[in-house]
C-alpha cells in the first residue's frame, strides 16, 4: 500500500533540502548566540534602565508564535514604502534573509534567558575569588562569569538547538525548499503526502538524535568538572 519507490528517486531533493535546513540552522544559531550574549548581560544588570529593554524584548519574542514573527518580517515589511525604497529592500525581499533573521531573533531571546539564568546561578565563591585576585569587572566577565555560565548552560542550550532545528521547518512556509519544503514539493508532485512527510520526519529524527549525541559529548568535554564522582 505504501510506495517508497518514488521517495527513493526523490532522495536528491531531500538532500538539497537537508543542506538548506543546515544552512538556516547554522546561520540562525550563530547570529542568535552573538545577540544573546549582550542581551543576557543586560538581563542580569541591576539597573532597570538596562534590564527592562532586554526583558521586554525576550518577553515579546517568547510570547508570540514564530510563524507570526516570520510573516511580519517577510510579508509585513513590504507594506512600507520606506523599506521598499531603501537599500535594505534586496535583503528584506529575500526569503532566506528574512528566515535567517527571524530565526536568529527568536533563538536570541530564548538563549539570552538561558544564559542569564546560568549567569545568576554562578557560585558566589567564583566571583569572590576573582575579586580577591584583583580582576576588573570586564576581566571578571570575560575570564570567569561567561565561560563558566556558558558551560553550565550547555544542557539547556542543547534543547534550544533542537527546538531551532524544528523551527527551521517553518522556512518552507515562505517559499524556501528546506527538508520540509522538499517533502511538500514531493507530496504535491506525486500526491503521496504520507510517504513524503514520514520520510522528512525520519530525517529530522535522525538529526535530532545526532544533535543529542553531539551535546552529550560536548557535556562530557566541557562539564566534566560537574559530573558526579564515579566512585
Amino acid at each position, binding site marked *: *500500500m505504501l510506495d517508497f519507490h518514488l521517495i527513493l528517486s526523490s532522495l536528491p531533493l531531500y538532500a538539497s533540502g537537508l543542506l538548506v535546513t543546515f544552512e538556516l540552522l547554522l546561520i540562525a544559531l550563530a547570529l542568535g548566540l552573538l545577540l544573546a550574549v549582550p542581551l543576557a548581560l543586560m538581563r542580569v544588570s541591576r539597573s532597570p534602565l538596562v534590564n527592562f529593554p532586554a526583558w521586554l524584548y525576550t518577553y*515579546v519574542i*517568547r*510570547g*508570540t*508564535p*514564530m*510563524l*507570526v*514573527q516570520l*510573516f*511580519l518580517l517577510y*510579508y*509585513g*515589511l*513590504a*507594506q*512600507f514604502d520606506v523599506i521598499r525604497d531603501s537599500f535594505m529592500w534586496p535583503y528584506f525581499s529575500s526569503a532566506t534573509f528574512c528566515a535567517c533573521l527571524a530565526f536568529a531573533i527568536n533563538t536570541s531571546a530564548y538563549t539570552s534567558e538561558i544564559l542569564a539564568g546560568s549567569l545568576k546561578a554562578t557560585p558566589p565563591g567564583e566571583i569572590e575569588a576573582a575579586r580577591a585576585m584583583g580582576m576588573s569587572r570586564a576581566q571578571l566577565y570575560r575570564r570567569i562569569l561567561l565561560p563558566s555560565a556558558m558551560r553550565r548552560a550547555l544542557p539547556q542550550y542543547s534543547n534550544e538547538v533542537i527546538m531551532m*532545528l*524544528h*523551527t*527551521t*521547518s*517553518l522556512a*518552507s*512556509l515562505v517559499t524556501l525548499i528546506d527538508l*520540509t519544503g522538499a*517533502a*511538500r514539493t514531493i*507530496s504535491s508532485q506525486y*500526491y*503521496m*503526502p*504520507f510517504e*513524503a*512527510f*514520514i520520510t*522528512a*520526519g525520519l530525517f*529530522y*529524527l535522525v538529526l*535530532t*538524535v545526532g544533535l543529542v549525541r553531539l551535546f552529550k559529548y560536548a557535556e562530557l568535554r566541557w562539564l566534566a568538572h560537574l559530573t558526579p564522582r564515579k566512585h
Partner: protein
Amino acid sequence: MLQGYGPIIVEGAWLTLTLALCSMALAILLGLTGAALRLSPLRWLANLGDAYATLIRGIPDLVLILLIFYGGQDLVNRIAPSLGYTAYIDINPFVAGVFTMGFIFGAYLSETFRGAFMAIAKGQAEAGAAYGMSGAQVFLRILVPQMIRFAIPGFTNNWLVLTKATALISVVGLQDMMFKAKNAADATREPFTFYLAVAGLYLLLTSVSLLLLRAVEKRYSAGVRTAEI
C-alpha cells in the same frame, strides 16, 4: 485601523483559544497515560511510552501536522475502499487540529508528568499503602495532588508552546486568528498591520495564561516551606 476586520480576527482568536484548550485536554490525558507507561515496571510498556515521547519530540510540529492532516487523510481514503466505504472522506480541520496538537503535546507532557511523579518522595506512596489504600487510591489521593505542584512549571511552559503552535494549524486551513489575519492581509495589502494585531493577541493570551498559572502554582504550593536567600 483594521478596516472592519477586527471582529473577524477576534472570532478567529476565539477559535484559537478553543483549539488550544481542547488540545490541552487531550494532551493531559495522553500525557498521564504516557507518564504511567514510562514509569511502568513492565519493560515493554515503558519502552512503548519512551518510543512515543522520543518519536514525537524528534520531529518538528509542522511536519507532524502536515503528516497527520494530509498523510492521515490520504491514508484513510486509501484504506476506506477496502472496507467497502467508497465516498471521499474529508477530515474536519478542527478535529484534526485537536488530535494532532493533543498527540504532539501529550508526548511533551508525558515528560513533564514523569519528572513530577519521580520528584515525589517515595515514603508518600509507602505511607498511603501502609494506611491500607489500594493502588488507585494511592495514585489519586496521594500522588496526583502532589504531582500537580511539581508539574506546574513544566506545564506552564508546555501550555505556552502549545498556544503558540496552534498558529501552525492555519497552514492546513483551520480558520483561526492566524488564518483570518492572512486573509485580511491579502485583501487589504496591509500584512504588517494584521500580523502585528495578531501578535498582540497572542501576547495577551500568553500573558493572561502566565498570570493564571502563577495563581494556580501558589494554590498548590500552600503549606510548602520556602526559604529566602
